[in-house]
């Protein structure tokens, strides 16, 4: 006992003198062993039990007099036993709070009395009697022990003892000594066993410890940690959270722990222990797995070494938290002991049984406290990483001893328990997945709604959401067991059996998530992927036939990637067997639906291989069977490329691999099944400039237009979408017109039920209508009327395009009236209250275009449209701001009593002036233009001036942006009309930069600058500055312009300068 206590037990170092036993599991079990030893002692060794200790064991107890019963003399709070030693001391004496015990029989009685507090009693006893051997047997024994250490065997010790004790010659003494010695050894060996197991952490241990630590994160004075969290919410069936390829290395999970006093710790828990890693914040960061610290045996130890605050407070915490579990443990031990009474030695089986009992308790929620257990969890053992749980029982080594039966019973109890648990996890895990599977598109499925924005592809990501596996009791479907059986045959079968089994497996509904996940969970996915690396063509075909189906499932895709399966699939693309190539490409099409997969395809040269598949002759009328297969291979290749093309870098890779001409050739195919993936890929890639050029120059517009008249909605949609993206280019727009695509596009508007098609068609119309020739054509087809009808009750994707088109149409005056007649103005104004920024940009633009018509303006004014547009200046998007400001210009210009209207908008002018602080040139230009309009009203100009418009405008004059210069000069020219603004502009240094504007190449800049200079030149000081900057020469040049306004302004400015010079010389004359 002595040796194990001093050497093996874990003492807290903090407290002085007496020292306390730490609340570690090992101490816990040591205590239990000792307790058991003490309890059994008097019944097993009655003679030795009566032996009186040399010195009493003394400790402060929680027992009080009332706890003691008949065998004791009780007087008030003091208790004495009837039995006395030779010198008359009672063998047990209680004088609170201390108790003195002088024999094992008393000790065991006391322990029985203490009932559920006995463990504490033993603990207190050991803590206060650090050398019980000495006290029990006397210092002589202790010295022998010290001399011999633990190296001597029992016999030689006995001899020594007998030599020493010849005088007293007490045989009992020696026996007692031997018993204690025996016990000590037993304890030590157990400690050793536990310590050796300790190093092997397992998921349950880690989980429990994390749970414990999480309790320490609670607010309040007990708080020792800020936060503890896993990097992944996703727990595998074996309890690990690390991705499978890391689990192989023994890693269990990754944690991010924020201590109160130091920086955040990123921790890896592995079976070998815990250590700091290189910052794994989220799952999937390849880089951070490396170890950056020593390995600690558990989290608490690591935290103690890293966070002083933690180590200071943790011991108090342990007490608080562990109180409950430890008492339960005692009860539990007692119940086991009751069965095992009278057993001379604790057999291994008994311990094992205990362990299982504990393991079972571990699952009950109230056990979640700090209790640690280092026995490998049966669940972990049983399930392994991927192996089917059913086999587990058989694998466990059976114990060969008398108690095997009871052990067996325990195991059986446990086996099904673990099974159902796994079942439950499995079936529930399918729930979130099932939801997500609804998002999955079939290869020929719909394209996402947001596929139309320019940067569609990247935003349309299938997010890699962690898979949640909540616990529940739902049972597994029968398919699960059937699939498990089939996978077993797959593993253990030759080629023939494998092919048969694969064929049988295809009979399951592989599109159903239960089956998909069942295949994965029984380890079938691994086998399927392994088959791909064999030389057996038939096995590969069979495997791919299954993979292509189950890869519709998000989780399966992820697992395939995690297992490196995609690489194997890509290897098959080189195969000479066409069926194989087609199947492989089709599987890739499914798998490559998330970013990591697409990257993998690219990095392993998959894009090149896929592009190579496209090489076939698709447009022959009669194909041989072989050519037919080539076409099928090309189709699957196109499907795969379509999936891959959602990543920008892949688009580039496809282009570099020479994919564009091949796609162009396939585009001439007469088959829809081929055209859909081809056009799908093209429209996806058309977000890249290089593709748009290529699509145009390779003559694909013609085919795209042709396929607009297909009767397949999806194909029409992709074609329209491709045109939508390409028609930014004028030549493309002309080509669409040339191939009579405009009419086809308008006719697509009748399919108003298919919103995606409608969005694509309206988008194409919008972009095509940028060319006025196209607008004229559209008018022929009454497109405008149809579009105006689409302004209501449509999804935003459609509205954006419709409104965009209206904005373009409204560039032609006749159309403004048409829009009004169709009731479009009201709809447009209504849309101003929306939140979609792309939509707002288009709406304001359309409203602005409509506002150039006086009749329209009346309606806009009535509907309070100006106020709505004005309020959009507060929008966070610069595009919306500038677009709104541009729209305000015609509104203010054409509104009746515009000045009053502007004044009525509270805070409006201040808002405008503040926007001059924007950093976006387009916003600045639009605001300047608006200011020029507002400043036409003197009162408003006065307000603007009060808000400090002059210095803000002056500050902007250094710009080199011609568009801004033009409107800035315009604004300055108009703002000169108030008070001393001319002089203020001069003072603010706006004049000199303006002179430089005359060197600009933009005629519009010249015009507005000349006007501004003319206004500024009415101030003599400005004239001097202008003259000094050499304004006269360019002005004289401008006077030769065709524009009368410009001539007049330039001439006026020169006149002013000249007048000043004259006055000056006159003044000098008079002096």
């Amino acid at each position: 006992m002595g040796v194990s206590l001093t050497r093996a037990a874990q003492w807290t170092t903090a407290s002085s003198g007496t020292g306390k036993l730490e609340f570690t599991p090992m101490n816990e079990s040591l205590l239990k062993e000792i307790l058991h030893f003490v309890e059994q002692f008097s019944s097993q060794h009655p003679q030795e039990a009566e032996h009186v200790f040399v010195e009493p064991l003394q400790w402060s107890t929680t027992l009080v007099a009332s706890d003691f019963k008949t065998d004791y003399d009780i007087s008030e709070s003091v208790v004495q036993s009837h039995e006395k030693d030779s010198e008359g001391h009672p063998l047990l004496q209680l004088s609170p709070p201390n108790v003195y015990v002088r024999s094992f029989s008393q000790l065991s009685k006391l322990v029985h009395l203490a009932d559920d507090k006995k463990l504490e009693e033993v603990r207190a006893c050991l803590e206060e009697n650090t050398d019980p051997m000495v006290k029990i047997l006397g210092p002589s024994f202790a010295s022998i022990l010290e001399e011999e250490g633990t190296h001597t065997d029992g016999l030689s010790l006995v001899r020594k003892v007998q030599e020493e004790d010849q005088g007293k010659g007490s045989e009992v003494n020696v026996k007692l000594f031997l018993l204690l010695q025996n016990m000590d050894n037993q304890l030590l060996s157990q400690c050793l066993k536990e310590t050796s197991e300790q190093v092997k952490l397992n998921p349950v241990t880690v989980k429990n410890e994390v749970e414990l630590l999480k309790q320490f994160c609670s607010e309040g004075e007990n708080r020792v940690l800020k936060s503890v969290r896993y990097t992944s919410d996703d727990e595998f069936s074996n309890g690990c959270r690390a991705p499978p390829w890391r689990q192989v290395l023994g890693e269990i999970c990754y944690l991010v722990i924020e201590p109160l006093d130091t920086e955040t710790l990123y921790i890896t828990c592995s079976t070998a222990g815990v250590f700091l890693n290189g910052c794994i914040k989220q799952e999937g960061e390849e880089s951070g797995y490396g170890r950056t610290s020593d390995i600690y045996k558990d989290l608490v130890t690591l935290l103690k070494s890293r966070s002083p605050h933690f180590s200071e407070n943790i011991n108090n915490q342990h007490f608080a938290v562990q109180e409950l579990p430890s008492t339960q443990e005692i009860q539990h031990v007692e119940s086991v002991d009751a069965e095992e009474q009278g057993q001379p030695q604790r057999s291994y089986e008994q311990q094992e049984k205990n362990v299982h009992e504990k393991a079972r308790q571990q699952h009950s929620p109230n056990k979640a406290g700090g209790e640690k257990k280092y026995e490998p969890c049966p669940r972990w053992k049983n399930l392994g990483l991927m192996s089917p749980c059913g086999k587990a029982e058989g694998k466990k080594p059976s114990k060969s001893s008398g108690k095997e039966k009871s052990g067996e019973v325990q195991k059986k109890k446990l086996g099904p328990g673990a099974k159902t648990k796994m079942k439950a996890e499995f079936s529930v895990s399918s729930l979130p997945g099932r939801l997500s599977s609804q998002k999955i598109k079939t290869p020929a499925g719909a394209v996402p709604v947001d596929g139309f924005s320019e940067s569609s592809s990247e935003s349309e990501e299938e997010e890699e959401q962690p898979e949640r596996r909540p616990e529940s009791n739902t049972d597994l479907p029968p398919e699960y067991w059937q699939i498990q059986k089939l996978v077993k045959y797959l593993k253990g079968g030759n080629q023939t059996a494998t092919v048969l089994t694969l064929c049988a497996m295809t009979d399951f509904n592989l599109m159903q998530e239960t089956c998909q996940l069942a295949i994965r969970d029984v380890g079938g996915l691994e086998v399927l992927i392994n088959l791909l690396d064999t030389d057996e063509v038939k096995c590969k075909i069979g495997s791919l036939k299954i993979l292509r189906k189950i890869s519709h499932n998000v989780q399966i895709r992820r697992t395939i990637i995690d297992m490196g399966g995609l690489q194997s699939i890509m290897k098959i693309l080189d195969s000479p067997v066409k069926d194989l190539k087609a199947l492989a490409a089709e599987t890739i099409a499914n798998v490559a639906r998330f970013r990591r997969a697409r990257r993998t395809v690219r990095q392993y040269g998959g894009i090149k291989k896929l592009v190579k598949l496209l090489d076939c002759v698709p447009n022959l009328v009669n194909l041989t069977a072989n050519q037919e297969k080539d076409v099928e291979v090309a189709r699957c290749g196109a499907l795969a490329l379509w999936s891959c093309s959602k990543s920008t870098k892949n688009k580039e890779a496809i282009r570099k691999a020479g994919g564009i001409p091949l796609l162009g050739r396939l585009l001439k195919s007469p088959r829809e099944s081929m055209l859909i993936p081809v056009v799908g890929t093209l429209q996806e890639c058309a977000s890249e400039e290089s593709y748009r050029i290529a699509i145009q120059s390779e003559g694909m517009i013609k085919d795209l237009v042709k396929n607009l008249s297909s009767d397949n909605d999806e194909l029409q949609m992709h074609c329209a979408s491709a045109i939508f993206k390409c028609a930014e280019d004028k030549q493309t727009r002309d080509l669409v017109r040339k191939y009579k695509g405009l009419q086809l596009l308008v006719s697509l508007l009748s399919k108003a039920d298919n919103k995606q098609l409608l969005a694509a068609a309206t988008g194409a119309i919008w972009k095509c209508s940028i060319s006025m020739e196209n607008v004229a054509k559209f008018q022929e087809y009454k497109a405008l009327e149809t579009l105006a009808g689409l302004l209501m009750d449509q999804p935003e994707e459609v509205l954006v395009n419709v409104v965009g088109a209206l904005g373009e149409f409204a560039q032609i005056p006749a159309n403004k009236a048409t829009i009004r007649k169709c009731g479009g103005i009201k709809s447009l104004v209504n849309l101003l209250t929306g939140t979609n920024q792309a939509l707002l940009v288009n709406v304001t633009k359309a409203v602005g275009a409509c506002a150039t018509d006086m009749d329209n303006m009346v309606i806009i004014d009535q509907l309070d449209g100006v106020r709505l547009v004005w309020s959009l200046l507060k929008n966070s998007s610069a595009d919306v701001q500038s677009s709104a400001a541009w729209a305000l210009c015609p509104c203010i210009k054409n509104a009746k009593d515009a000045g009053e209207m502007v004044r009525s908008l509270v805070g409006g002018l201040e808002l405008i002036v503040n926007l001059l602080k924007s950093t976006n040139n387009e916003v600045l230009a639009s605001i300047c233009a608006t200011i020029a309009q507002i400043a036409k009203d003197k009162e408003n100009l006065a307000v603007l001036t009060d808000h400090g418009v002059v210095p803000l405008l002056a500050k902007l004059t250094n710009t080199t942006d011609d568009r801004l210069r033009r409107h800035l000069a315009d604004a300055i020219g108009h703002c000169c009309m108030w008070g001393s603004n001319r002089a203020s502009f001069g003072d603010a240094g706006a004049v000199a930069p303006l002179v430089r504007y005359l060197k600009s190449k933009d005629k519009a800049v010249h015009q507005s600058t000349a006007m501004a200079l003319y206004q500024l030149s009415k101030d003599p000081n400005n004239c001097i500055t202008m003259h000094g900057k050499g304004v006269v020469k360019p002005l004289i040049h401008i006077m030769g312009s065709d524009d009368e306004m410009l001539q007049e302004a330039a001439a006026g400015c020169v006149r002013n300068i000249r007048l000043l010079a004259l006055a000056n010389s006159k003044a000098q004359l008079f002096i």
Partner: protein
Amino acid sequence: MSEMSAMNRKLIQALAETISKQVEHFNKTEVEFLIREFNVLLGEPTVPSRAASGLDRGRFRSILHNSFGMTDDMIMDGVFRTFDKDNDSLISMKEWIEGMSVFLRGTMDEKIKYCFHVYDLNADNYISREEMFHMLKNSLIRQPTEEDPDEGVKDLVEITLKKMDHDHDGRLSFADFEKAVREENLLLEAFGTCLPDTTSIEAFEQHVFQEQLEQ
């Protein structure tokens, strides 16, 4: 010797002429080469009277093994049986060429018939449960832990029957087999590889049709 081969050549050409009209997939020259190959495989007849005989089981099996990588005795016997249409335990030259026509270049229909014959061990026009068990019994690794080591195979047979036995009479008729194979081509060689793979076909044809041409 040259005299003899000159005579042989004429003979062979005449023979090839007739056979090529009866057998599909091979042209006259190819038939000629196949005849030559047959003669080579047969070896020089030691006893003149046996010259007209054919390949016996052992010879044929060694061809299947060496040229086409087949290993399963039962399947090889089945192939021999299928080639040997007149059941005289010898494969005559005609049988050889007819057999090879399916073996190397058969259409799907021909292959289905061929495979069914190979698997129909007792030639009763049905593949019975027992026959399946017989053919599949070595297809699974036996796990010593299992009580009945044949249990897996039995189960596999049941699975296969479930998939292929469309009329549910517990055995596969030709119609069952054909239907199943048409639905899933992989089932053509359901009970063991009895057709050569593309590489060995290429190698064999290369060897027979081209190398001999060079000689």
